[in-house]
């Protein structure tokens, strides 16, 4: 590859990534040379500005035809644009939380890192949306993961934070190894790491043995990646890590990291397995493995919702809730209907809004009370009606009641589940577990609205949190009442 070919690439399609990368470099340097006494929050605001710039650049790239550069390792297609926007928006909101997060337990000195580690993680996620090569996908995934490990443990002197980071690393390592092992078989059977070429090669596989091996690879990749989705069977780390990590990190893990997880899963499932070994009994690998996917989705929904019932810690409860939501999303994947990407994208959008909003409230409450018990929400309506009502709306959206984005998201998934070959059982499980989820979401409501407050002190809500809450509530309701704004947007991308 000569310099000439390099310069011939249409680098502009990578502008968003470059912006983020640039901001990371800038922040690192600033952090290094800034006097110690200066408040590092300014770095946070800078990174927000950077993310905003990246969003603008993605928007300006919206009309660009799908472009592939760097020998097809980086592709900017509709899928990439749509999910990149989601990731950026999610990360932006998380940054607002991060800026408002009160540093303690040894984190004070690493405040700068706190911000730009988020950005590196984001960069990894963004790369995943645009990769069309196993290697870059893997690198993006690991960039995201490793940054997250550090973020989870950034409160150095806090045992829980350390422990959660440790658990995260170990489980993450195992999952990486399993994923990679699966990938290595895919490479072995196709002889290439380029997704397009893999699809081509694998579509010609007719040998039963090879198909069998591909099936195993599929399972390994799926299980390995279920770590990122926090779905069964690799979900158990989530509650512990969510609990121990700083709240903005938890929010990041539950939203951005999960979105990235779905990005890579969709990429691999569709690009690699959708048309692999199509001549076998039952169609291609993906369709043959359909029941396994359904099984995992069902297990995830049941585990997430049922175990959440027993939680007394708000962050753990939200961990299980996020497991459950991963399950709903897996339903959309399982059905593989024509509107699957629509449903997943919209659901992730809705989920981002409502979950980040909820974590914003959680951050306010837990910082005030110093603990993360659900009982700390008692009497919130008396102490701060606005916060309580906000949280109420977000919880209603999470529970999937109409008038909120959460409902439309579920509706999308349902349309897919019944369209074509209907998935009665899976849809029934989904809806039944949704009803189960009312119990714990409304359990929080009960605390907020029905129970007396332990102390009547008011809250001092930081600006960043207010921004997140406004965006979350307005978005949740807006996309609940007029979902076409989002759906049309996505449709016009094509």
């Amino acid at each position, binding site marked *: 590859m000569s310099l000439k070919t390099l310069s011939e690439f249409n680098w502009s399609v990578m502008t968003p990534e470059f912006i983020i990368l640039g901001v990371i470099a800038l922040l690192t340097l600033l952090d290094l040379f800034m006097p110690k006494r200066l408040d590092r929050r300014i770095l946070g605001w800078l990174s927000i500005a950077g993310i905003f710039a990246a969003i603008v650049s993605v928007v300006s790239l919206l009309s660009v035809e799908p472009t592939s550069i760097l020998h097809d390792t980086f592709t900017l297609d509709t899928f990439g644009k749509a999910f990149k926007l989601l990731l950026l928006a999610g990360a932006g909101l998380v940054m607002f939380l991060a800026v408002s997060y009160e540093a303690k337990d040894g984190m004070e000195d690493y405040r700068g890192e706190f911000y730009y580690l988020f950005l590196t993680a984001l960069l990894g996620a963004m790369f995943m949306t645009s990769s069309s090569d196993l290697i870059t996908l893997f690198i993006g995934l690991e960039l995201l993961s490793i940054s997250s490990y550090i973020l989870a443990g950034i409160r150095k002197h806090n045992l829980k934070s350390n422990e959660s980071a440790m658990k995260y690393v170990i489980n993450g390592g195992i999952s990486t190894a399993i994923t990679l092992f699966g990938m290595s078989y895919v490479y072995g059977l196709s002889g290439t790491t380029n997704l397009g070429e893999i699809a081509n090669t694998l579509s010609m596989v007719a040998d039963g043995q090879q198909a069998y091996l591909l099936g195993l690879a599929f399972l390994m990749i799926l299980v390995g990646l279920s770590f990122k989705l926090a779905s069964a069977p690799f979900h158990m780390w989530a509650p512990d890590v969510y609990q121990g990590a700083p709240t903005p990190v938890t929010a990041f893990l539950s939203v951005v990291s999960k979105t990235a997880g779905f990005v890579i899963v969709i990429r691999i499932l569709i690009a690699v397995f959708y048309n692999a070994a199509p001549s076998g009994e039952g169609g291609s690998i993906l369709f043959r493995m359909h029941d396994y996917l359904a099984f995992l989705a069902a297990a995830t929904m049941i585990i997430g919702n049922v175990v959440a019932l027993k939680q007394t810690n708000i962050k753990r409860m939200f961990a299980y809730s996020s497991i459950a939501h991963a399950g709903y999303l897996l339903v959309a994947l399982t059905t593989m209907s*024509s509107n699957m990407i629509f449903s997943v994208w919209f659901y992730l959008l809705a989920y981002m809004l409502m979950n980040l909003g909820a974590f914003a409230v959680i951050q306010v409450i837990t910082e005030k009370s110093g603990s993360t018990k659900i009982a700390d929400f008692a009497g919130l309506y008396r102490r701060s009606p606005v916060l309580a009502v906000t949280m109420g709306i977000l919880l209603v959206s999470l529970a999937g*009641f*109409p008038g909120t984005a959460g409902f439309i998201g579920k509706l*999308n998934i*349902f*349309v897919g589940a*019944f369209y074509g070959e209907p998935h009665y059982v899976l849809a029934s499980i989904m809806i039944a577990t949704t009803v189960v989820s009312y119990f714990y979401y409304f359990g929080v409501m009960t605390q907020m609205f*029905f129970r007396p407050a332990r102390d009547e002190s008011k809250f001092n809500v930081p600006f960043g949190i207010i921004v997140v809450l406004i965006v979350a509530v307005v978005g949740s309701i807006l996309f609940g009442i007029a979902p*076409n704004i989002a759906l049309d947007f996505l449709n016009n991308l094509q």
Partner: protein
Amino acid sequence: MNLHSILSILVFSPLLGIVVLAFLPKQSEKLIKWVGFLATIPALLIALAAYLHFQWGKDLADFAVSKSWIQFRGMGGAPEPFFSVNYELGLSGFQLLLVVLTAVVATLSAIAAVKFVKKEWKGYFMLFLLLEIGMLGVFTAENLILFFIFFEVTLIPTFFLIGKWGYFEKEKAAYSFLIYNGLGSAVLLIVIMILFAKTGTTNIEMLTKIIADPSAPLSGDLKLGLLIALLVAFGVKLPIFPLHSWMLKVHVQAPPAVVMIHSGILLKIGAYGLIRFGLGIFPEQFKTLATLLAVLGVINLLYGAFLAFIQTDFKMVLAYSSISHMGIVLIGLAAMNEAGVQGAIFQVISHGLISALLFFLVGVLYERTDTSLIENLGGMAKGMPIAAGFLLAGAMASLGLPGMSGFVSEFMAFLGLFKELPWIAAVGTIGIIMTAAYLLRAVLGMTYGKAHREFTGVLDLKGVEFVPVVVLFVLIVLIGVYPSVLSAPLQTTLETIMLGLGG
């Protein structure tokens, strides 16, 4: 004036009240109450105007509105089927009646709330108005998704209204309400989505046509399955035995103003759904279930009646009586002829009015005496003759005394069923006797007899409390004496249903 936007204004008019309330200070009790009450008035006026519009011989279709709303598309620009959901509201005669009922009961319930709610009026009225939006929407929605949305919109405010302003075991009741209705609506959602995915539309009229078409992409078994699912979904709401236990808790624990709404209107959504969707969309399959429904209806009727016979709490009596009376709705539906269906619809409205009246009176009694136990209230006719009189009148209406609305509906339902399934109907008539027995036992136990306690200082009905009582009572008698006020708007609805049933 553009009639097409009228329905949207009707449905969303309480929103104005919510917005105003949001900016009122928590403490200004009087102002909040006034706003809460006044916010129900526009809907009432529009509903009544729509009724007059019909009575003056104009077409209800004038009100129909349809706007494009949500489009579900496939990715990749392939010529995929284009799923779309429209924002569609409309009124048929049946819907019109329910909208009027809703508006009336909502306004009266607001008055009840003004009297009986003792704390946090602001939150109460905001939720209450949200609930009203949901109810009005349910009855005007012209497609299933919209119906479902409004249906669920009623759940949340009701949950809070019960859980916060209810009696002793309010939270339990609220949860019970939420979970049962959540499950019911979950089943409903599955049905809706299957229909949607199979036919590409949720518009009720179009669905009816598609399903009736023998070349529809739904097998007979699937249709039957969907209908049974609908029966379960609305059976929770109605409620049908054995899905009723949540409703007892709600009736006992919820505040009276909410129970007025709940028993008066929310339960009716179940009946409305069964008639409009069950009978309307799946007439063929409904026929095969007729006997089952009749049996369920009779079971409901008798089960509720016998259990009401031994209750000690008047609220429980009324709760079981609601179960019993909803049995009559089923009986009427099972008849599947004009008389039966009209009887069922009449019963829906009549019971709405009667139970609103009775629960309002319970509210009055509870407010004065802090009890609703029959035993503790014995002989109250001495201290509160007017309240006792209305209580007795309400009970009479409830037990189907001619000249009041309860009779007309009961009569028609049985008239219908006797034509089709005379033996089941004959068993059902035991319910008529039992209804008289349990209601008189309870009401006479409270009003007549020796006073077990001093009712000195206990005030009779007064002031604004007369408004709900008198309005409801007058309506009950009006329907009983001149049922054409209801039957006239119903004839087109009935015709459509009969057409679906094949004549």
